[in-house]
């Protein structure tokens, strides 16, 4: 416990230093936007773009660099696609079932088989195969790069430190920012889609590998050294095997993140399921987009079952029971089944999925959307309807916060944030926040709406804050309930998964229909996307409280409610703080999506800059998003680290950045472990 005196010191020093700084600046600048410096990142990017456009096609860098890579990537995807066509749909189902049965067990195999069948039944077999081919190539490349880099970063902390900012940027920078530049380098079609996917998914692969390896207990390594193991041996025989769960998780995460690029990949001609989603969106046909979105969820399920591995106990039993003869028989049976299925598929309607099998939810979904729009917008008793909720949020939440942030001068904001970070999170975090925000002040591209990057950053920040608060308000009670009731948690888990893999584009139209174009639909989309980690981490925190502690409380006569508020919640606080951290990063990762439905600010800047060939603006807006992420991430991480709780002290020693963005499979694994 800190004594009052030291608390005073802790508060007084930063306050005094920053206040002095603020007074100094106040004398110099009254301008809300910093005008004294300009890093000219935008103009520099623009000139690079111009050079690329003029030289692509004849410069050696393209002739011998990017073009061969693009051709290679294209051929790789095309070959996979041809193979998928060659084995036909019965062949693919059988192959998936056989592989999943070998890797993850019978139950997983059945689920995967059903999922493949559903893809066909949704009427999107052809585009789904394109998406699967893209996924296979992207994920293979991510793993081929991510595993060695992850090993390197586990062994050399200096490497890890230096790459940290780069990996952060790769994860938070909107994929839009590099997708269109990728087109200039790699032309259209599969190659830019693969490259963008690799950029987006690589950090998770590197971090999970490195995290897994570093999680190997020192004593195990010492045993190895004592027995004279070379570094290579201890890597191959000790570290990698022990880190297996984390490595499998890395593959899993990579796949799920990669699926997040599917829709925007269609913008650059990569086709696949993303194209179906966009085509539906073009005519506001939510049903069509939903079918495609469901197929993306099914692809995620299939790939998950193919790579998840067996739960620990089942895996042990599997290895014990498995004799070489049995393995051989299984292999033969598997190969035989696949071959027979391919022959059947070839004979039967030349391998095209029969159109008579139809699971399409097109009509019911469209009816549901129409019903919601007609009945929920107005005239709901008490709350009035989504229309009035929307107006209330704008007038009473968004506007005041935005006005507050945009009316402060830039140095007021920086000093305020830095002071807050210093007091609550320490000097280092404060320095990181100050630097990140100072970078934003040096960005001076013209915003799409004529505003400056700084003002748009504050606007986006206000939306992010509101979205995070709403997410946490919803996530906490659900998470607490899920933490207490095993059955409830089992029931919502598939829904949480689907919420994250289903592309936001699918539900944009109904959300706008309900909440009118503006900042609110963007916030709703962010909340839908960001809820799952908040719920999962809250539930995890509650469940991680040791039973002995609860037993002790109960035996001293505490009621259920008292146990919850006095024991479980305080002990779960750290996990909840990590949930907050994750929620913030998730919200930031959909800023561009929010821009597409009326969120304006940085999201629109990114879209506008990239589509109008004003790359400079797009990239500067992307950098501003990364800067916001640095500030909010470092601060909340420090808060989480400062809180005592079981999650931090026992199993969840994971630095939160490892599990950021996209999936929370790690949590699932921890829960089942």
């Amino acid at each position: 416990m800190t004594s009052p005196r030291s608390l005073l010191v802790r508060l007084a020093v930063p306050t005094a230093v920053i206040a002095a700084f603020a007074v100094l600046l106040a004398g110099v600048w009254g301008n809300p936007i910093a005008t004294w410096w300009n890093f000219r990142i935008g103009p520099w990017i623009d000139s690079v773009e111009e050079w690329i456009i003029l030289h692509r096609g004849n410069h050696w860098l393209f002739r011998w660099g990017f073009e061969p890579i693009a051709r290679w990537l294209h051929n790789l995807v095309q070959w996979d696609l041809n193979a998928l066509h060659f084995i036909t749909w019965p062949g693919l189902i059988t192959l998936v079932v056989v592989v999943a049965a070998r890797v993850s067990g019978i139950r997983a195999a059945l689920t995967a088989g059903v999922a493949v069948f559903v893809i066909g039944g949704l009427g999107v077999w052809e585009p789904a195969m394109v998406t699967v081919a893209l996924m296979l190539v992207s994920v293979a490349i991510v793993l081929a790069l991510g595993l060695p880099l992850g090993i390197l970063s586990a062994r050399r902390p200096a490497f890890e430190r230096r790459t940290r900012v780069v990996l952060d940027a790769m994860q938070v920078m909107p994929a839009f920012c590099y997708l269109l530049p990728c087109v200039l380098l790699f032309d259209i079609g599969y190659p830019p889609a693969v490259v963008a996917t690799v950029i987006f998914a690589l950090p998770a692969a590197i971090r999970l590998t490195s995290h897994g390896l570093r999680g190997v207990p020192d004593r195990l390594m010492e045993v190895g050294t004592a027995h004279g193991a070379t570094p290579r041996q201890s890597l191959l025989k000790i570290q990698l095997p022990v880190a297996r769960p984390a490595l499998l998780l890395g593959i899993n995460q990579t796949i799920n993140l990669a699926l997040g690029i599917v829709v925007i990949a269609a913008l650059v001609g990569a086709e696949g399921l993303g194209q179906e989603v966009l085509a539906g969106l073009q005519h506001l046909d939510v049903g069509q987009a939903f079918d495609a979105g469901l197929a993306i969820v099914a692809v995620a399920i299939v790939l998950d079952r193919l790579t998840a591995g067996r739960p620990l106990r089942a895996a042990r039993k599997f290895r014990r029971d498995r004799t070489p003869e049995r393995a051989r028989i299984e292999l033969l049976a598997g190969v035989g089944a696949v071959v027979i299925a391919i022959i059947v598929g070839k004979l039967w309607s030349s391998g095209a999925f029969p159109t008579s099998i139809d699971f399409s939810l097109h009509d019911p979904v469209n009816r549901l959307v129409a019903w919601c729009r007609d009945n929920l917008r107005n005239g709901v008793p008490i709350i009035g309807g989504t229309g009035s909720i929307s107006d209330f949020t704008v007038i009473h939440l968004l506007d005041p916060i935005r006005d507050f942030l945009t009316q402060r001068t830039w140095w007021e904001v920086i000093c305020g944030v830095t002071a807050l970070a210093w007091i609550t999170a320490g000097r280092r975090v404060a320095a990181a926040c100050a630097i990140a925000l100072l970078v934003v002040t040096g960005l001076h591209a013209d915003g799409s709406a004529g505003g400056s990057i700084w003002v748009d950053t504050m606007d986006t920040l206000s939306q992010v804050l509101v979205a995070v608060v709403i997410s946490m308000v919803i996530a906490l009670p659900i998470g607490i309930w899920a933490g207490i009731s095993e059955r409830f948690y089992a029931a919502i888990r598939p829904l949480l998964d689907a919420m994250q893999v289903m592309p936001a584009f699918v539900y944009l139209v109904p959300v706008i229909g309900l909440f009118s174009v503006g900042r609110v639909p963007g916030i709703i989309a962010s909340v839908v996307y960001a809820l799952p980690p908040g719920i999962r981490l809250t539930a995890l925190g509650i469940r991680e409280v040791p039973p002995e502690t609860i037993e002790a409380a109960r035996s001293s006569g505490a009621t259920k409610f008292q146990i919850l508020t006095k024991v479980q919640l305080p002990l779960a606080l750290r996990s909840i703080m990590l949930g907050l951290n994750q929620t913030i990063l998730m919200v930031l990762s959909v800023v561009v999506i929010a821009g597409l439905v009326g969120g304006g600010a940085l999201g629109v800047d990114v879209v506008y800059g990239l589509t109008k060939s004003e790359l400079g603006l797009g990239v500067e807006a992307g950098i501003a998003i990364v800067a916001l992420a640095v500030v909010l991430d470092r601060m909340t991480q420090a808060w989480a680290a400062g809180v005592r709780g079981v999650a931090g002290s026992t199993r969840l020693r994971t630095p939160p950045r490892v599990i950021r963005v996209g999936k929370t499979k790690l949590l699932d694994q921890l829960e089942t472990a």
Partner: protein
Amino acid sequence: MKRSRRLILGTVVLAFALSACGSSSKPSSSGTTTTTGGGGAKKFSGSITLAVNPWDGSAANAAVAKVILEKQGMTVKTKDIDENAVWAALDSGTIDANLEVWPSGHAKDIETYITTKKSVIDGGLIGPTGHIGWFIPKFVADAHPEYKTWDGLKTAAAAKYFATAETGDKGQFLLGDPSYVSYDADIIKNLNLPFKVVTGGGEAALITGIDTAFKDQKPLLFYFYTPQWANAKYDLVTVKLPDITPACTASAAGQGKDGKYSCDYPTDHLMKAISAKLQSKNANAFSFLEKMKWTDNDQNTVTKYKNEDGMTIDAAAQKWVDANPTVWQAWLS
């Protein structure tokens, strides 16, 4: 423990193994059909790729070109792609032509690729014209005829009428896709209109906004354009803006960067952009695409077959081609 390594390896190998066994087979469906025939001199052969941007007119142009050229014995592929990403593909020759470019939104691309680098050729006009403008629903125009001209929008009453939570005491002007050419903020400023631009962020957002306004019978002033399928579904009325002046033309030439634009939008004469490489690769196809030209009416007929009669775009194109041989025969000569 070897399993983890094997698994990871397995995933990598799976991708490559699939590649290997796939290379021996042909794709069972490549999405294109080749029909040879047509008789006469075999002028047309080989294969080209046409861009399809995400709107019906673009799909109609490409489908008609495809139907005609395939009848002549060519292979025509179509590629769904964003209208901005397509320029890089025209530059490299991956896509041979984009048959409907709205020049107002692509001044910079036209300058870079057509004027400076000359890797893309201005293929002339496709015929249909695009009109961008300010629109209100018909029920608004009926209730308040004064809002049919910009003069009527100057009043505080107009601001109040069109106001939403997002715009407070000002009226809302709803914009869609930020990449479409838009002078609206400047028009509002220069004409002293008490309005504020809200950027919907995408075409889908804009049309959903319109759809909601019609469902709720709520006022809405917005940026819209023809041809667009939603014009057939919703009864829309144009708001009259000041006539185009030389000053506005000058401002538009600079993409409105001077902030002085204050007139109606100029008519967009939709053009074709053809990859320069096609000229040497397939001169006959190049000349066909250059000559291809039809009218607003023709294009609307095809999109109507698709949207109202539920035909596929290829079937719709075929129906138009069957009915209008005189129009397209000229493109082949």
